[in-house]
């Protein structure tokens, strides 16, 4: 019996266990991520589209997993007229809010 055999007498189960834990951690992350990102993307798109005309492919959503925290990054490219309206709308709401407070 070789030295290797003596060591491997622990059996192959621990190796199976380690491999499984790795595969499953990866797969859970993949599935969890893709599902959540798809849902978030659709819902965020719907909210924005109610107010501004945007092109769906100009919206990027990224989830990045770090050590302690994960971040959700949102990158939306607005068409020029919409961008202008967006700033206009903001001043208008601000004005309305002021009026409401005054009343």
């Amino acid at each position, binding site marked *: 019996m070789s030295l290797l055999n003596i060591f491997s*007498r*622990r*059996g*192959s*189960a*621990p190796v*199976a*266990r380690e*491999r*499984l*834990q790795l*595969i*499953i951690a990866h*797969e*859970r992350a993949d*599935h969890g991520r893709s*599902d959540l990102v798809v849902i978030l993307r659709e819902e965020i798109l719907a909210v924005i589209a109610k107010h501004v005309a945007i092109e769906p492919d100009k919206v990027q959503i990224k989830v990045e997993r770090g050590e302690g925290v994960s971040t959700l990054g949102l990158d939306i490219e607005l068409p020029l007229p919409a961008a202008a309206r967006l700033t206009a709308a903001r001043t208008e709401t601000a004005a309305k809010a002021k009026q409401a407070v005054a009343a």
Partner: protein
Amino acid sequence: MSKVLVVTSGKGGVGKTTTTAALGAAIAQSGSSVCVVDFDVGLRNLDLVMGAERRVVYDLINVVNGDAKLAQALIRDKRLDKLALLPASQTRDKDALTDAGVARVMEELREKFDWVICDSPAGIERGATLAMRHADMAVVVTNPEVSSVRDSDRIIGLLDSKTIKAEKGETLEKHLILTRYDPNRADRGDMLKVEDVLEILSIPLLAIIPESEEVLRASNVGCPVTLNNPLSAPARAYADAVRRLQGEAVPMSVPSDRKSFLGKFFTRRAA
């Protein structure tokens, strides 16, 4: 209140059909009425394991399509009058099952039986999701082996997302049956440990079913193992599973087929 239970696994050939038949017969023996339903359209097997293959006239698809009444398709077991089978068809296309049709049939089954046990096809596609769709609880059948545990993890993900219960935001009760467990291989350290599988899948253990030739013997004669040889190790393990499903606290063990001391000595040597 009737219970719909799906027996599922992802991976094929791990023991779903064996488990469906064994649990069905054991529940019927305990006095509750049960219908076992074969969702494995195109590869029907449950009728064979139950020994009812020659009595199949109508099947699940006929009932779903409205070509036959449920009562016409149900096959009452000859040994246990509380046990019935709704067979699958051998030839037809599985796309023949419509969502609405299946929903109607499941509702009708709920009215007639205390327990409805759905034998899922392998895989993670429509056949498997249709079998689990209406379930109140699931038995995930797993072998102590890397690919089986991995597929079980995928199936657990589907149980938590594709079932009506999950969609309503309710929790679906899930239980693990670890089957084809071989104590000799476990002793040698060549099989995933029960604790390892439980830690990875993190669902409660319902039973450990030992690898046993009694399972093959039972399927040869077309009789659920719990009925064919109730004293055999797998039958006792399945009977304990049923008692646990019914709320009894039964200590967990791995039953073994009793062998003489000499017999044990020789099998150990041979291993």
